[in-house]
């Protein structure tokens, strides 16, 4: 007697519960953007850590760098791969932005996609933006 109510109820329930999946099937998902390397970064080939570690841990590295620069006045970083860098986000040729010249394509594209909003740039300046 109640069979048809139960079945329709179940069908509706399943459709509703799985709605995120249906939604994803219908809409196109955006592919994660690849950070675009500047010509200079491509040429240099070696970053501070290897690519995957950099992707996962650059924020911890920057945090470590900040403490080292501000607290201990140690400003040079000799990486495990033998290259040395100035521990700075944006000042000088040997800093992060010194090599990864295009902040919008390198930092912002991923940060926007991942919806993270680091407040680095409230104080640190992008030398390209100043000119």
């Amino acid at each position, binding site marked *: 007697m109640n069979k048809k109510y139960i079945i329709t109820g179940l069908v509706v329930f399943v459709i509703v519960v799985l709605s995120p999946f249906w939604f994803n099937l219908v809409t196109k998902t955006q592919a994660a953007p690849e950070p675009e390397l500047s010509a200079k970064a491509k040429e240099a080939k070696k970053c501070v850590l290897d690519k995957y570690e950099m992707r996962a841990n650059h924020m911890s590295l920057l945090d470590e760098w900040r403490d080292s620069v501000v607290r201990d006045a140690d400003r*040079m*970083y*000799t990486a*495990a791969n033998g290259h040395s860098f100035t521990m700075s986000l944006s000042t000088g040729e040997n800093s992060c932005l010194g090599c990864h010249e295009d902040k919008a394509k390198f930092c912002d594209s991923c940060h926007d996609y991942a919806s993270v909003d680091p407040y680095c740039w409230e104080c640190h300046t992008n030398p390209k933006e100043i000119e």
Partner: protein
Amino acid sequence: MMKKSRRSFLRVAGIAAVGLGAAPAMNFAASDSHGTAKPMKTKNKKALTAHRWGMVIDTNKLNDEIVENIIEACHIAHNVPDFDHEVDEEKYPDTRPVNHKQEVKWIWDEHFHSAFPDKEDEFLAEKFKHLGFLVTCNHCKNAPCVQACPTQATFKREDGIVLMDFHRCIGCRFCMAACPFGSRSFNFRDPRPFIPETNADFPTRSKGVVEKCNLCAERLAKGEQPHCVEASQGAIVVGDLEDPESEVRVLLNENYSIRRKQSLGTEPSVYYVV
């Protein structure tokens, strides 16, 4: 049909165990032989170092023009906002009107009676009455701001510089209340619209952060003298107070000098030759 004896089973199991154990050991040995060097953090070879940085200001060598140059050099280099600067409406639309009582300063000139309230004599030499005394953070030996800071954003570096980690400042302003010299300024608003020319070599600050003189730690690290010293035409000397041979100690030895509010016991590291 294959029938395993206990002996053959044990033999295979033994070999397998050795094999399993060998893989991690081999990997370990292999990674060791690669010799992955530990990353190192070091100072620039040219960096200037001291046991305790101090400053000697020879007031006889100062005049209005030099004082102005010094202030300008410091404030431009460190992106210190000037609230009299006209805001670029295109770049920063909707900037609230300015309260001109606000100021942010790292080094500035002060009258003798304000800078040295405890040394105000009845018949003070006439020249002191008009001279602009350059005052800045004293980088005290017993810095009260360091004790007041609840987050250790202000701290005393090993070489005596009282430094701020702007990242950690929560804007509570305890340090401003603690500092007897008024050396600290608070950013009541975003300073960027009021920076005439942003210097790319130094960050700006953000709203809600205290700031003050850092004795040009970023320049000492590169082996350069602070901006004020360079602009002072010899009136300001910065050096190691604990080295008897240093230029500052020689100057202090040869001249009579005073310090600000010495009776408070903060032991300022800025000396004035008068």
